[in-house]
Protein backbone atom coordinates (compact mmCIF):
# COMPACT_ATOMS: atom_id res chain seq x y z
CA UNK A 1 0.00 0.00 0.00
CA UNK A 2 2.43 2.64 1.10
CA UNK A 3 6.14 2.41 1.65
CA UNK A 4 5.73 2.29 5.39
CA UNK A 5 3.20 -0.53 5.51
CA UNK A 6 5.87 -3.15 6.19
CA UNK A 7 6.49 -1.41 9.50
CA UNK A 8 2.84 -1.61 10.54
CA UNK A 9 2.42 -2.59 14.15
CA UNK A 10 -0.88 -3.43 15.76
CA UNK A 11 -2.04 -0.58 17.93
CA UNK A 12 -3.49 -1.41 21.30
CA UNK A 13 -6.80 0.11 22.30
CA UNK A 14 -6.39 3.04 24.68
CA UNK A 15 -8.43 5.47 26.67
CA UNK A 16 -9.13 8.60 24.67
CA UNK A 17 -10.33 11.92 25.98
CA UNK A 18 -12.76 12.76 23.24
CA UNK A 19 -16.08 10.99 22.71
CA UNK A 20 -15.86 11.31 18.93
CA UNK A 21 -12.56 9.42 18.99
CA UNK A 22 -13.89 6.44 20.96
CA UNK A 23 -13.13 3.14 19.30
CA UNK A 24 -10.77 4.69 16.74
CA UNK A 25 -7.04 3.98 16.75
CA UNK A 26 -4.96 6.89 18.05
CA UNK A 27 -3.06 9.03 15.56
CA UNK A 28 -0.07 9.14 17.87
CA UNK A 29 0.91 6.39 20.27
CA UNK A 30 4.06 7.01 22.27
CA UNK A 31 5.45 4.15 24.30
CA UNK A 32 8.03 4.43 27.05
CA UNK A 33 9.90 7.15 25.18
CA UNK A 34 13.23 8.28 26.56
CA UNK A 35 16.39 10.09 25.53
CA UNK A 36 19.75 10.58 27.21
CA UNK A 37 22.21 13.32 26.35
CA UNK A 38 25.47 11.85 27.61
CA UNK A 39 24.78 11.10 31.24
CA UNK A 40 21.75 13.37 31.43
CA UNK A 41 18.33 11.77 31.08
CA UNK A 42 16.22 14.50 29.46
CA UNK A 43 13.07 12.46 28.93
CA UNK A 44 12.19 9.13 30.47
CA UNK A 45 9.23 6.74 30.40
CA UNK A 46 7.01 9.06 28.37
CA UNK A 47 3.75 7.31 27.46
CA UNK A 48 0.77 8.91 25.81
CA UNK A 49 -1.84 8.47 23.11
CA UNK A 50 -3.62 11.14 21.11
CA UNK A 51 -6.94 10.49 19.38
CA UNK A 52 -7.39 11.43 15.71
CA UNK A 53 -9.27 14.67 16.46
CA UNK A 54 -8.11 15.45 19.96
CA UNK A 55 -6.60 18.66 21.26
CA UNK A 56 -4.02 17.79 23.91
CA UNK A 57 -1.71 19.94 25.94
CA UNK A 58 1.77 19.37 27.27
CA UNK A 59 2.66 21.53 30.23
CA UNK A 60 5.41 21.66 32.79
CA UNK A 61 7.87 24.06 34.38
CA UNK A 62 10.75 25.51 32.35
CA UNK A 63 13.36 22.92 31.42
CA UNK A 64 10.98 20.01 32.02
CA UNK A 65 11.74 18.54 28.58
CA UNK A 66 8.64 19.62 26.68
CA UNK A 67 10.39 20.82 23.53
CA UNK A 68 12.70 17.79 23.70
CA UNK A 69 9.57 15.63 23.49
CA UNK A 70 8.45 17.59 20.39
CA UNK A 71 11.90 17.12 18.88
CA UNK A 72 11.66 13.39 19.52
CA UNK A 73 8.21 13.18 17.96
CA UNK A 74 9.46 14.93 14.81
CA UNK A 75 12.69 12.89 14.64
CA UNK A 76 14.94 15.90 15.20
CA UNK A 77 16.40 13.64 17.91
CA UNK A 78 16.39 9.87 17.73
CA UNK A 79 15.09 8.36 20.99
CA UNK A 80 17.39 6.29 23.22
CA UNK A 81 14.49 4.15 24.39
CA UNK A 82 10.90 3.46 23.48
CA UNK A 83 8.94 3.93 20.28
CA UNK A 84 6.68 6.40 18.53
CA UNK A 85 3.82 5.06 16.45
CA UNK A 86 2.39 7.61 14.07
CA UNK A 87 -0.84 6.31 12.51
CA UNK A 88 0.34 2.89 13.69
CA UNK A 89 3.71 3.14 11.96
CA UNK A 90 6.96 3.11 13.91
CA UNK A 91 8.95 6.23 13.03
CA UNK A 92 12.23 4.79 14.23
CA UNK A 93 15.14 5.79 11.99
CA UNK A 94 13.12 8.15 9.80
CA UNK A 95 14.36 11.69 9.29
CA UNK A 96 12.29 14.81 9.96
CA UNK A 97 11.23 15.17 6.34
CA UNK A 98 9.97 11.59 6.17
CA UNK A 99 8.07 11.88 9.44
CA UNK A 100 6.39 15.00 8.08
CA UNK A 101 5.36 13.16 4.92
CA UNK A 102 3.85 10.52 7.18
CA UNK A 103 1.65 13.14 8.80
CA UNK A 104 3.23 15.21 11.56
CA UNK A 105 3.82 18.95 11.23
CA UNK A 106 5.01 21.45 13.80
CA UNK A 107 5.71 25.04 14.71
CA UNK A 108 8.69 26.28 16.70
CA UNK A 109 9.10 27.99 20.04
CA UNK A 110 11.54 30.48 18.51
CA UNK A 111 9.75 31.24 15.24
CA UNK A 112 11.44 29.69 12.21
CA UNK A 113 9.92 31.24 9.12
CA UNK A 114 11.62 31.77 5.77
CA UNK A 115 12.19 35.46 6.45
CA UNK A 116 13.26 36.55 2.97
CA UNK A 117 10.24 34.99 1.31
CA UNK A 118 6.67 36.27 1.16
CA UNK A 119 3.98 34.86 3.42
CA UNK A 120 2.41 33.19 0.39
CA UNK A 121 5.71 31.55 -0.57
CA UNK A 122 6.19 30.35 3.01
CA UNK A 123 2.88 28.51 2.78
CA UNK A 124 3.77 27.20 -0.68
CA UNK A 125 7.02 25.77 0.69
CA UNK A 126 4.84 24.01 3.26
CA UNK A 127 2.83 22.54 0.39
CA UNK A 128 5.98 21.31 -1.37
CA UNK A 129 5.06 17.63 -1.38
CA UNK A 130 1.46 18.37 -2.38
CA UNK A 131 2.51 20.17 -5.56
CA UNK A 132 2.78 17.69 -8.38
CA UNK A 133 5.32 19.03 -10.86
CA UNK A 134 8.45 17.28 -12.09
CA UNK A 135 11.94 18.81 -11.92
CA UNK A 136 12.08 19.09 -15.71
CA UNK A 137 8.67 20.77 -15.84
CA UNK A 138 9.82 23.30 -13.23
CA UNK A 139 13.05 23.92 -15.13
CA UNK A 140 11.38 24.48 -18.49
CA UNK A 141 8.08 25.90 -17.20
CA UNK A 142 6.02 23.33 -19.11
CA UNK A 143 2.21 23.66 -19.03
CA UNK A 144 2.03 21.30 -16.04
CA UNK A 145 4.10 23.85 -14.11
CA UNK A 146 1.55 26.63 -14.64
CA UNK A 147 -1.29 24.29 -13.77
CA UNK A 148 0.30 23.13 -10.52
CA UNK A 149 1.37 26.67 -9.56
CA UNK A 150 -2.13 27.98 -10.08
CA UNK A 151 -3.57 25.23 -7.94
CA UNK A 152 -0.92 25.82 -5.26
CA UNK A 153 -1.61 29.56 -5.22
CA UNK A 154 -5.32 29.00 -4.78
CA UNK A 155 -4.87 26.50 -1.98
CA UNK A 156 -2.24 28.62 -0.23
CA UNK A 157 -4.51 31.68 -0.38
CA UNK A 158 -7.36 29.59 1.03
CA UNK A 159 -5.18 28.57 3.96
CA UNK A 160 -3.97 32.13 4.56
CA UNK A 161 -7.54 33.31 4.44
CA UNK A 162 -8.52 30.62 6.92
CA UNK A 163 -5.94 31.94 9.38
CA UNK A 164 -6.95 35.55 8.65
CA UNK A 165 -3.70 36.34 6.86
CA UNK A 166 -4.91 36.86 3.29
CA UNK A 167 -4.11 40.58 3.26
CA UNK A 168 -0.43 40.07 4.15
CA UNK A 169 0.16 37.33 1.54
CA UNK A 170 2.65 39.45 -0.44
CA UNK A 171 4.65 40.75 2.52
CA UNK A 172 8.04 39.37 3.51
CA UNK A 173 7.61 36.98 6.43
CA UNK A 174 10.48 38.56 8.36
CA UNK A 175 8.81 41.97 8.40
CA UNK A 176 5.54 40.76 9.95
CA UNK A 177 4.56 41.40 13.58
CA UNK A 178 5.24 38.66 16.09
CA UNK A 179 1.69 37.41 16.53
CA UNK A 180 1.16 37.27 12.78
CA UNK A 181 4.40 35.32 12.34
CA UNK A 182 3.13 32.73 14.83
CA UNK A 183 -0.10 32.33 12.90
CA UNK A 184 1.81 32.11 9.60
CA UNK A 185 3.89 29.29 11.04
CA UNK A 186 0.71 27.39 11.90
CA UNK A 187 -0.50 28.08 8.37
CA UNK A 188 2.72 26.66 6.89
CA UNK A 189 2.46 23.57 9.08
CA UNK A 190 -1.15 23.04 7.98
CA UNK A 191 -0.09 23.34 4.35
CA UNK A 192 1.87 20.08 4.56
CA UNK A 193 -1.45 18.29 5.09
CA UNK A 194 -0.67 16.67 8.46
CA UNK A 195 -2.71 14.24 10.55
CA UNK A 196 -1.39 15.84 13.72
CA UNK A 197 0.10 19.26 14.28
CA UNK A 198 2.44 20.14 17.13
CA UNK A 199 2.33 23.74 18.36
CA UNK A 200 5.28 24.85 20.49
CA UNK A 201 4.07 27.78 22.64
CA UNK A 202 1.71 29.22 20.02
CA UNK A 203 0.57 32.05 22.33
CA UNK A 204 4.04 33.18 23.45
CA UNK A 205 4.41 36.92 22.99
CA UNK A 206 0.73 37.43 22.16
CA UNK A 207 -1.52 39.90 23.97
CA UNK A 208 -4.76 38.67 25.62
CA UNK A 209 -6.98 39.52 22.67
CA UNK A 210 -4.63 37.77 20.25
CA UNK A 211 -4.57 34.76 22.58
CA UNK A 212 -8.37 34.66 22.68
CA UNK A 213 -8.41 34.75 18.87
CA UNK A 214 -5.82 31.97 18.79
CA UNK A 215 -7.93 29.75 21.06
CA UNK A 216 -10.82 30.15 18.70
CA UNK A 217 -8.55 29.37 15.72
CA UNK A 218 -7.11 26.23 17.31
CA UNK A 219 -10.59 24.81 17.74
CA UNK A 220 -11.50 25.87 14.21
CA UNK A 221 -8.42 24.10 12.80
CA UNK A 222 -9.45 20.87 14.48
CA UNK A 223 -13.08 21.13 13.41
CA UNK A 224 -12.30 22.08 9.80
CA UNK A 225 -9.42 19.75 9.04
CA UNK A 226 -10.39 16.96 11.47
CA UNK A 227 -6.82 16.61 12.72
CA UNK A 228 -5.25 16.18 16.12
CA UNK A 229 -3.46 19.06 17.84
CA UNK A 230 -0.78 18.71 20.48
CA UNK A 231 0.44 21.92 22.06
CA UNK A 232 2.97 23.17 24.57
CA UNK A 233 1.85 26.33 26.31
CA UNK A 234 2.53 28.32 29.46
CA UNK A 235 -0.69 30.30 29.21
CA UNK A 236 -2.88 28.21 31.57
CA UNK A 237 -6.04 29.99 30.48
CA UNK A 238 -5.49 28.75 26.92
CA UNK A 239 -4.49 25.24 27.93
CA UNK A 240 -7.41 24.74 30.34
CA UNK A 241 -9.94 26.13 27.87
CA UNK A 242 -8.83 24.47 24.66
CA UNK A 243 -7.31 21.10 25.60
CA UNK A 244 -9.35 17.97 26.12
CA UNK A 245 -6.47 16.02 27.61
CA UNK A 246 -3.39 17.34 29.39
CA UNK A 247 -0.04 15.77 30.20
CA UNK A 248 2.16 17.36 32.83
CA UNK A 249 5.90 16.70 32.81
CA UNK A 250 8.63 17.65 35.22
CA UNK A 251 12.31 16.64 35.04
CA UNK A 252 11.52 14.64 31.88
CA UNK A 253 8.91 12.43 33.55
CA UNK A 254 5.14 12.46 33.45
CA UNK A 255 3.75 13.57 36.81
CA UNK A 256 0.09 13.77 35.86
CA UNK A 257 -2.33 13.02 33.03
CA UNK A 258 -6.00 13.80 32.69
CA UNK A 259 -8.72 16.25 31.79
CA UNK A 260 -8.22 19.94 32.62
CA UNK A 261 -10.39 19.57 35.73
CA UNK A 262 -8.33 16.66 37.03
CA UNK A 263 -5.07 18.49 36.37
CA UNK A 264 -6.19 21.69 38.11
CA UNK A 265 -6.78 19.80 41.37
CA UNK A 266 -3.81 17.42 41.16
CA UNK A 267 -1.52 17.99 44.17
CA UNK A 268 1.58 16.81 42.25
CA UNK A 269 0.99 19.45 39.58
CA UNK A 270 0.43 22.20 42.13
CA UNK A 271 3.63 21.18 43.85
CA UNK A 272 5.62 21.21 40.59
CA UNK A 273 4.41 24.69 39.74
CA UNK A 274 4.13 26.37 43.14
CA UNK A 275 6.40 24.28 45.36
CA UNK A 276 5.63 22.34 48.52
CA UNK A 277 3.79 23.87 51.46
CA UNK A 278 6.09 24.36 54.39
CA UNK A 279 5.31 22.48 57.59
CA UNK A 280 5.15 25.72 59.54
CA UNK A 281 2.43 27.13 57.27
CA UNK A 282 0.24 24.11 57.71
Amino acid at each position, binding site marked *: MNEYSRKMIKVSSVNLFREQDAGKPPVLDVRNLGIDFGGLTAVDGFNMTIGPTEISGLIGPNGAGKTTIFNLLTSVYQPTRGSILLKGIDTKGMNTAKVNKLGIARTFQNIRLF*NDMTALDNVKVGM*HNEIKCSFLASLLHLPSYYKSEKKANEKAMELLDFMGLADIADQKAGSLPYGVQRRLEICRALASNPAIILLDEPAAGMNPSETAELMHQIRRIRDTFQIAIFLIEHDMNLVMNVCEGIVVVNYGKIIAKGTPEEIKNNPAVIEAYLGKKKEADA
Partner: protein
Amino acid sequence: MKKLWNNKTTRTNLTTYLVVTVAFVVMQLMSSFGQLGSAMKGYLIPVCAYIVMAVSLNLLVGVCGELSLGHAGFMGIGAFTGIVIAALLQDAIPNDTLLLVVAMFAGGIMAGIFGFLIGIPALRLRGDYLAIVTLAFGEILKNIFSNLYVGLDSEGLHMAVSTGKVQLLEGGRMILDGPVGATGITKLSTFPMGFVLILFTLFVVLNLINSKEGRAIKAVRDNRIATESVGINVTAFRMKAFVVSAFLAGMAGTLFGLNFSSLQASKFNFNASINVLVFVVLGGMGNILGSVISTAVLYILPEAMRGLDDLRMILYAVVLIIVMLFTWSPSVKNAVQSVTASVQEKLRKNKKEAVNNE
Protein backbone atom coordinates in the same frame (compact mmCIF):
# COMPACT_ATOMS: atom_id res chain seq x y z
CA MET B 1 0.12 41.67 -21.01
CA LYS B 2 -0.52 44.40 -18.45
CA LYS B 3 -1.47 41.75 -15.94
CA LEU B 4 1.85 40.04 -16.60
CA TRP B 5 3.69 43.31 -16.06
CA ASN B 6 1.98 43.86 -12.70
CA ASN B 7 3.44 40.65 -11.33
CA LYS B 8 6.71 41.66 -9.70
CA THR B 9 8.70 38.49 -10.45
CA THR B 10 7.60 38.39 -14.07
CA ARG B 11 8.55 42.05 -14.42
CA THR B 12 12.03 41.48 -12.97
CA ASN B 13 12.57 38.46 -15.22
CA LEU B 14 11.43 40.24 -18.37
CA THR B 15 13.66 43.20 -17.52
CA THR B 16 16.61 40.84 -17.19
CA TYR B 17 16.00 39.27 -20.61
CA LEU B 18 15.43 42.69 -22.13
CA VAL B 19 18.63 44.24 -20.77
CA VAL B 20 20.72 41.31 -22.02
CA THR B 21 19.10 41.41 -25.45
CA VAL B 22 19.54 45.17 -25.84
CA ALA B 23 23.18 44.93 -24.75
CA PHE B 24 23.74 42.17 -27.30
CA VAL B 25 22.11 44.11 -30.15
CA VAL B 26 24.10 47.26 -29.31
CA MET B 27 27.38 45.35 -29.19
CA GLN B 28 26.58 43.50 -32.38
CA LEU B 29 25.75 46.74 -34.21
CA MET B 30 28.85 48.50 -32.90
CA SER B 31 30.95 45.58 -33.96
CA SER B 32 29.48 45.47 -37.48
CA PHE B 33 29.98 49.23 -37.93
CA GLY B 34 33.59 48.89 -36.85
CA GLN B 35 33.10 50.93 -33.67
CA LEU B 36 34.69 48.26 -31.47
CA GLY B 37 38.45 47.95 -31.15
CA SER B 38 39.96 44.54 -31.78
CA ALA B 39 40.82 44.24 -28.08
CA MET B 40 37.22 44.92 -27.11
CA LYS B 41 35.99 42.39 -29.67
CA GLY B 42 38.23 39.83 -28.03
CA TYR B 43 36.50 40.35 -24.67
CA LEU B 44 32.98 39.76 -25.92
CA ILE B 45 33.02 35.97 -25.70
CA PRO B 46 34.92 35.72 -22.39
CA VAL B 47 32.45 38.23 -20.92
CA CYS B 48 29.58 36.01 -22.05
CA ALA B 49 31.26 32.99 -20.46
CA TYR B 50 31.86 34.86 -17.20
CA ILE B 51 28.28 36.15 -17.10
CA VAL B 52 27.10 32.54 -17.28
CA MET B 53 29.61 31.67 -14.56
CA ALA B 54 28.38 34.48 -12.31
CA VAL B 55 24.69 33.64 -12.82
CA SER B 56 25.30 29.96 -12.10
CA LEU B 57 27.37 30.78 -9.00
CA ASN B 58 24.63 33.15 -7.86
CA LEU B 59 22.26 30.19 -7.90
CA LEU B 60 24.55 28.48 -5.42
CA VAL B 61 25.72 31.42 -3.29
CA GLY B 62 22.79 33.81 -3.47
CA VAL B 63 19.80 31.53 -3.79
CA CYS B 64 20.96 28.40 -2.00
CA GLY B 65 23.23 30.23 0.46
CA GLU B 66 26.21 27.91 0.03
CA LEU B 67 29.62 29.46 -0.47
CA SER B 68 31.66 27.72 -3.18
CA LEU B 69 35.24 28.73 -3.95
CA GLY B 70 35.94 26.14 -6.63
CA HIS B 71 33.58 27.23 -9.37
CA ALA B 72 36.41 27.74 -11.88
CA GLY B 73 37.16 24.02 -11.53
CA PHE B 74 33.82 23.19 -13.13
CA MET B 75 34.53 25.75 -15.81
CA GLY B 76 37.81 23.92 -16.50
CA ILE B 77 36.05 20.57 -16.77
CA GLY B 78 33.66 22.09 -19.29
CA ALA B 79 36.46 23.74 -21.25
CA PHE B 80 38.67 20.66 -21.64
CA THR B 81 35.77 18.27 -22.19
CA GLY B 82 34.42 20.63 -24.83
CA ILE B 83 37.80 20.88 -26.55
CA VAL B 84 38.23 17.11 -26.66
CA ILE B 85 34.67 16.52 -27.86
CA ALA B 86 35.00 19.21 -30.52
CA ALA B 87 38.24 17.66 -31.81
CA LEU B 88 36.73 14.18 -31.73
CA LEU B 89 33.53 15.07 -33.58
CA GLN B 90 35.04 17.62 -35.94
CA ASP B 91 34.64 15.35 -38.96
CA ALA B 92 31.35 13.82 -37.89
CA ILE B 93 29.58 17.18 -37.46
CA PRO B 94 30.41 19.58 -40.29
CA ASN B 95 28.28 22.43 -38.93
CA ASP B 96 30.34 24.58 -36.51
CA THR B 97 27.37 25.88 -34.54
CA LEU B 98 25.96 22.40 -34.04
CA LEU B 99 29.39 21.13 -33.05
CA LEU B 100 29.69 23.93 -30.49
CA VAL B 101 26.26 23.12 -29.04
CA VAL B 102 27.13 19.43 -28.76
CA ALA B 103 30.47 20.29 -27.15
CA MET B 104 28.76 22.67 -24.72
CA PHE B 105 26.25 20.06 -23.60
CA ALA B 106 29.04 17.49 -23.28
CA GLY B 107 31.04 19.95 -21.17
CA GLY B 108 28.00 20.79 -19.09
CA ILE B 109 27.07 17.17 -18.49
CA MET B 110 30.64 16.25 -17.55
CA ALA B 111 30.80 19.17 -15.10
CA GLY B 112 27.39 18.16 -13.73
CA ILE B 113 28.62 14.60 -13.14
CA PHE B 114 31.70 15.91 -11.35
CA GLY B 115 29.47 18.30 -9.39
CA PHE B 116 27.41 15.35 -8.24
CA LEU B 117 30.45 13.27 -7.28
CA ILE B 118 32.08 16.17 -5.43
CA GLY B 119 28.75 17.06 -3.87
CA ILE B 120 28.38 13.69 -2.16
CA PRO B 121 31.20 14.32 0.33
CA ALA B 122 31.27 18.15 0.17
CA LEU B 123 27.60 18.78 0.84
CA ARG B 124 27.84 17.03 4.18
CA LEU B 125 29.51 20.26 5.24
CA ARG B 126 28.14 23.77 5.58
CA GLY B 127 29.32 27.37 5.49
CA ASP B 128 33.04 27.97 5.87
CA TYR B 129 33.87 24.26 5.78
CA LEU B 130 32.08 23.77 2.49
CA ALA B 131 33.94 26.80 1.11
CA ILE B 132 37.30 25.28 2.09
CA VAL B 133 36.46 21.89 0.59
CA THR B 134 35.24 23.39 -2.70
CA LEU B 135 38.42 25.47 -2.84
CA ALA B 136 40.46 22.29 -2.47
CA PHE B 137 38.42 20.53 -5.16
CA GLY B 138 38.93 23.44 -7.52
CA GLU B 139 42.70 23.24 -7.07
CA ILE B 140 42.70 19.44 -7.43
CA LEU B 141 40.80 19.68 -10.70
CA LYS B 142 43.20 22.32 -12.00
CA ASN B 143 46.17 20.08 -11.16
CA ILE B 144 44.55 17.09 -12.84
CA PHE B 145 44.18 19.11 -16.05
CA SER B 146 47.83 20.14 -15.99
CA ASN B 147 48.83 16.48 -15.84
CA LEU B 148 46.41 15.09 -18.35
CA TYR B 149 47.57 14.02 -21.79
CA VAL B 150 44.98 13.33 -24.44
CA GLY B 151 45.89 12.42 -27.99
CA LEU B 152 43.80 11.65 -31.02
CA ASP B 153 44.72 9.47 -33.97
CA SER B 154 42.99 7.17 -36.43
CA GLU B 155 42.43 4.60 -33.67
CA GLY B 156 40.60 7.09 -31.49
CA LEU B 157 41.33 8.84 -28.21
CA HIS B 158 44.33 8.05 -26.04
CA MET B 159 44.47 9.28 -22.47
CA ALA B 160 47.25 9.13 -19.89
CA VAL B 161 48.62 11.04 -16.94
CA SER B 162 52.22 10.94 -18.13
CA THR B 163 53.56 12.06 -21.45
CA GLY B 164 55.35 8.86 -22.43
CA LYS B 165 52.24 6.73 -22.30
CA VAL B 166 50.43 8.39 -25.18
CA GLN B 167 51.79 6.71 -28.32
CA LEU B 168 50.09 8.15 -31.36
CA LEU B 169 49.99 6.65 -34.83
CA GLU B 170 51.13 8.65 -37.82
CA GLY B 171 48.88 11.64 -38.45
CA GLY B 172 47.70 11.72 -34.83
CA ARG B 173 47.94 14.85 -32.69
CA MET B 174 47.89 15.81 -29.03
CA ILE B 175 44.75 17.64 -27.97
CA LEU B 176 45.75 18.11 -24.35
CA ASP B 177 49.44 18.22 -23.59
CA GLY B 178 49.77 18.37 -19.80
CA PRO B 179 51.16 21.66 -18.50
CA VAL B 180 51.33 23.09 -22.01
CA GLY B 181 47.56 22.81 -22.12
CA ALA B 182 45.33 22.43 -25.11
CA THR B 183 46.76 23.65 -28.38
CA GLY B 184 45.55 23.91 -31.93
CA ILE B 185 41.96 24.41 -30.85
CA THR B 186 39.50 25.17 -33.63
CA LYS B 187 37.81 28.40 -32.53
CA LEU B 188 34.12 27.59 -32.58
CA SER B 189 32.73 30.13 -30.13
CA THR B 190 30.95 33.14 -31.54
CA PHE B 191 29.43 36.15 -29.83
CA PRO B 192 25.85 35.28 -30.90
CA MET B 193 26.31 31.78 -29.45
CA GLY B 194 27.56 33.36 -26.23
CA PHE B 195 24.41 35.44 -26.16
CA VAL B 196 22.28 32.34 -26.73
CA LEU B 197 24.08 30.59 -23.87
CA ILE B 198 23.37 33.55 -21.56
CA LEU B 199 19.70 33.42 -22.50
CA PHE B 200 19.62 29.67 -21.90
CA THR B 201 21.27 30.13 -18.50
CA LEU B 202 18.88 32.90 -17.51
CA PHE B 203 15.96 30.76 -18.66
CA VAL B 204 17.07 27.78 -16.56
CA VAL B 205 18.04 29.76 -13.46
CA LEU B 206 15.07 32.14 -13.41
CA ASN B 207 12.62 29.31 -14.08
CA LEU B 208 14.18 27.24 -11.35
CA ILE B 209 14.03 30.08 -8.81
CA ASN B 210 10.33 30.60 -9.48
CA SER B 211 9.32 26.96 -9.16
CA LYS B 212 8.62 24.74 -6.20
CA GLU B 213 12.20 23.46 -6.45
CA GLY B 214 13.50 27.03 -6.22
CA ARG B 215 11.30 27.80 -3.26
CA ALA B 216 12.65 24.72 -1.50
CA ILE B 217 16.24 25.81 -2.27
CA LYS B 218 15.56 29.29 -0.88
CA ALA B 219 13.88 27.73 2.15
CA VAL B 220 17.03 25.70 2.84
CA ARG B 221 19.00 28.96 2.81
CA ASP B 222 16.58 30.74 5.15
CA ASN B 223 16.00 27.97 7.67
CA ARG B 224 17.19 24.38 7.44
CA ILE B 225 15.27 22.97 10.37
CA ALA B 226 11.97 24.51 9.33
CA THR B 227 12.51 23.24 5.78
CA GLU B 228 12.92 19.70 7.04
CA SER B 229 9.85 20.08 9.24
CA VAL B 230 7.62 20.54 6.18
CA GLY B 231 8.87 17.38 4.53
CA ILE B 232 11.65 18.68 2.28
CA ASN B 233 14.85 16.68 2.05
CA VAL B 234 17.46 19.40 2.55
CA THR B 235 20.44 17.45 1.19
CA ALA B 236 18.63 16.62 -2.04
CA PHE B 237 17.89 20.26 -2.77
CA ARG B 238 21.38 21.48 -1.97
CA MET B 239 22.59 18.79 -4.38
CA LYS B 240 20.19 19.91 -7.10
CA ALA B 241 21.40 23.50 -6.83
CA PHE B 242 25.03 22.33 -6.83
CA VAL B 243 24.65 20.11 -9.91
CA VAL B 244 22.67 22.65 -11.95
CA SER B 245 25.24 25.29 -11.05
CA ALA B 246 28.13 23.00 -12.07
CA PHE B 247 26.35 22.07 -15.31
CA LEU B 248 25.98 25.72 -16.36
CA ALA B 249 29.58 26.47 -15.33
CA GLY B 250 30.68 23.58 -17.56
CA MET B 251 28.80 25.05 -20.52
CA ALA B 252 30.40 28.43 -19.87
CA GLY B 253 33.77 26.68 -19.76
CA THR B 254 33.24 25.14 -23.19
CA LEU B 255 32.30 28.52 -24.64
CA PHE B 256 35.39 30.02 -23.01
CA GLY B 257 37.73 27.22 -24.06
CA LEU B 258 36.68 27.09 -27.69
CA ASN B 259 37.35 30.83 -28.00
CA PHE B 260 41.14 30.52 -27.84
CA SER B 261 43.59 28.67 -30.04
CA SER B 262 45.42 27.43 -26.94
CA LEU B 263 44.38 27.09 -23.32
CA GLN B 264 46.24 26.30 -20.09
CA ALA B 265 44.73 24.84 -16.94
CA SER B 266 46.07 27.80 -14.96
CA LYS B 267 43.22 29.89 -16.39
CA PHE B 268 40.94 28.01 -14.00
CA ASN B 269 42.80 28.67 -10.78
CA PHE B 270 41.67 30.03 -7.44
CA ASN B 271 41.83 33.63 -8.75
CA ALA B 272 39.24 32.88 -11.40
CA SER B 273 36.89 31.43 -8.78
CA ILE B 274 37.34 34.46 -6.56
CA ASN B 275 36.74 36.84 -9.47
CA VAL B 276 33.42 35.19 -10.21
CA LEU B 277 32.52 35.40 -6.53
CA VAL B 278 33.35 39.12 -6.56
CA PHE B 279 31.01 39.59 -9.54
CA VAL B 280 28.24 37.79 -7.66
CA VAL B 281 28.70 39.63 -4.37
CA LEU B 282 28.91 43.07 -5.95
CA GLY B 283 25.99 42.36 -8.25
CA GLY B 284 23.92 41.39 -5.25
CA MET B 285 23.31 37.99 -3.70
CA GLY B 286 20.34 36.34 -5.40
CA ASN B 287 20.04 39.23 -7.87
CA ILE B 288 20.46 37.68 -11.32
CA LEU B 289 20.42 40.89 -13.37
CA GLY B 290 22.91 42.35 -10.89
CA SER B 291 25.30 39.47 -11.61
CA VAL B 292 25.01 40.06 -15.35
CA ILE B 293 25.73 43.78 -15.13
CA SER B 294 28.51 43.59 -12.54
CA THR B 295 30.27 40.87 -14.56
CA ALA B 296 30.12 42.88 -17.77
CA VAL B 297 31.44 46.02 -16.07
CA LEU B 298 34.02 44.47 -13.77
CA TYR B 299 35.44 42.10 -16.38
CA ILE B 300 36.01 44.80 -18.97
CA LEU B 301 37.14 47.51 -16.53
CA PRO B 302 40.65 46.22 -15.75
CA GLU B 303 41.19 45.48 -19.44
CA ALA B 304 39.99 48.92 -20.48
CA MET B 305 42.40 50.50 -17.99
CA ARG B 306 45.43 48.75 -19.46
CA GLY B 307 46.80 52.10 -20.59
CA LEU B 308 47.24 53.15 -16.98
CA ASP B 309 49.88 50.48 -16.34
CA ASP B 310 50.71 50.21 -12.63
CA LEU B 311 47.74 52.24 -11.45
CA ARG B 312 45.37 49.75 -13.06
CA MET B 313 44.92 47.27 -10.21
CA ILE B 314 44.81 50.05 -7.61
CA LEU B 315 42.01 51.78 -9.49
CA TYR B 316 40.23 48.44 -9.89
CA ALA B 317 40.37 47.91 -6.14
CA VAL B 318 39.08 51.42 -5.50
CA VAL B 319 36.18 50.81 -7.89
CA LEU B 320 35.34 47.56 -6.06
CA ILE B 321 35.30 49.38 -2.72
CA ILE B 322 33.10 52.18 -4.06
CA VAL B 323 30.63 49.73 -5.61
CA MET B 324 30.54 47.82 -2.33
CA LEU B 325 29.82 51.00 -0.38
CA PHE B 326 27.08 52.13 -2.73
CA THR B 327 25.31 48.78 -2.85
CA TRP B 328 25.68 47.58 0.73
CA SER B 329 26.48 50.35 3.20
CA PRO B 330 23.26 51.74 4.71
CA SER B 331 24.87 55.07 5.67
CA VAL B 332 26.08 55.73 2.12
CA LYS B 333 22.70 54.68 0.77
CA ASN B 334 20.96 57.13 3.12
CA ALA B 335 23.36 59.91 2.19
CA VAL B 336 22.71 59.34 -1.52
CA GLN B 337 18.98 59.29 -0.89
CA SER B 338 19.01 62.56 1.06
CA VAL B 339 21.10 64.25 -1.62
CA THR B 340 18.77 63.16 -4.41
CA ALA B 341 15.77 64.17 -2.29
CA SER B 342 17.15 67.68 -1.70
CA VAL B 343 18.00 68.06 -5.38
CA GLN B 344 14.46 67.05 -6.29
CA GLU B 345 13.11 69.51 -3.72
CA LYS B 346 15.17 72.32 -5.22
CA LEU B 347 14.06 71.46 -8.74
CA ARG B 348 10.45 71.48 -7.62
CA LYS B 349 10.95 74.87 -5.93
CA ASN B 350 12.57 76.31 -9.03
CA LYS B 351 9.68 75.05 -11.11
CA LYS B 352 7.18 76.61 -8.72
CA GLU B 353 9.02 79.90 -8.78
CA ALA B 354 9.16 79.78 -12.54
CA VAL B 355 5.41 79.20 -12.63
CA ASN B 356 4.83 81.99 -10.11
CA ASN B 357 6.97 84.42 -12.04
CA GLU B 358 4.93 83.84 -15.10
